[in-house]
């Protein structure tokens, strides 16, 4: 069936099978491969993207459920001139990644954390990222990165597209 989904500000209409998962739509139909599929069972958070302002695990959402939605993936964060989003810049500055597999989902979930709470404590960051696993166990620097990003102001809890992250 036909779906019309806006990804990173670009609206497109595609013919998809109802059983196509949003994660597969983003990777295979739209060619956006930053969104990783880790556990494929709603646990690890590697596939986290922002849909209509809310962080979601795209392995557990159908593309057809996202018809008419605004989706932001990691590719949609940096500015047109390549300037990093404050959350990306903070992950780089604080070395908030090791192998990098969890990073796209971690960055998207972290934006959701700051949207909800612009200046979280370490504990609040950890609770806000409870749905994202880092198999390198690099959590200390991830928490540090999110708190550094919070100091950059409200843009760290927003995505660049027209939508606002609500929670």
């Amino acid at each position, binding site marked *: 069936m036909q779906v019309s989904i806006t990804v990173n500000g670009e609206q497109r209409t595609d013919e998809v099978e109802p059983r196509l*998962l949003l994660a597969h739509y983003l990777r295979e139909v739209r060619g956006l491969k930053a969104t990783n599929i880790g556990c494929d069972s709603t646990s690890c*958070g590697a596939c986290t993207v922002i849909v209509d302002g809310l962080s979601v695990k795209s392995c557990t959402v*159908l593309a057809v459920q996202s018809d008419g939605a605004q989706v932001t993936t990691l590719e949609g964060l940096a500015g047109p001139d390549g300037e990093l989003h404050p959350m990306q810049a903070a992950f780089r500055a604080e070395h908030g990644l090791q192998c990098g597999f969890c990073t796209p989902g971690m960055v998207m979930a972290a934006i959701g954390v700051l949207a909800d709470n612009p200046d979280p404590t370490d504990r609040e960051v950890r609770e806000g990222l409870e749905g994202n696993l880092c198999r390198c166990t690099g959590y200390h620097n991830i928490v540090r990165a999110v708190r550094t990003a919070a100091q950059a102001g409200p843009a760290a809890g927003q995505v660049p597209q027209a939508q606002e992250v609500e929670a």
Partner: protein
Amino acid sequence: MIPSPFEYVKVRSVDEALAALTEHGEDAKLLAGGHSLLPIMKLRLAIPTVLIDISGISDLSYVRVDGDGPDAMVAIGAGTRHFELERDDVARTEVPLLPHVAGRVGDPQVRHRGTIGGTTAHSDPASDLPTALLALGGTVVLQGPGGRREVPVTEFWTGFFETAMSPDEMVVELRVPRTGSIGWGYEKFTRRENDWPIVAAAAVDGRVALANMAGSVVRATATEEALARGASIAEAAELADQGTSPGADMHADQEYRRHLARLLTRRALETAAGV
């Protein structure tokens, strides 16, 4: 993992949903947040041939007080998502156990999608909100071709993925008594914060419900009776696993689950009592 093929139907009203259920029969499943249904479809433990998406029914998302005085109930629309319930001011004031437990479901991403009606209809014995609803008492409001009916929560969850609901009915509302300032407690034991509970206990107003101690969520009736007789919390909690039939898996054997039921019941009752 990819689900079996199915036909997808998006409906805009309860009437449209019921018509679609009647048309497609037992091969159809309702899809709300999809965070219980899609995982088991990906594992092909469920193979519905038609999915009826009810997430676009906007008037199923609300929390309000219905009626006045001691008989007033808190009514929660079946389409209310966990994060909405978690933050709802009416719920926090009138029945604070429920928004607290909504905030303990899964993780933020899961709470952005999952609905209270979905978790109620799914009837997983390990689910958080049904455990809280069972401790609170109240009813599940169903709508079908013959109209509306209310089923007491004590009669709704009948077994593993089994409820008192007919295939042509849907959950439209949950109704619970106002508890206001009455103490409550919820204790959940997990390996990781966003896991399903290995065991959980909800306590409010002398009632206790347990997650994952039988085929469905269950009340700890022996504990409740002991409390009613004036037993201490410690004595009553020792009876929490009586009449339960927990399963065993790689996380916990039966005796360990029984131990957790007694321990978590004591802690939940102590929290509720403010001790």
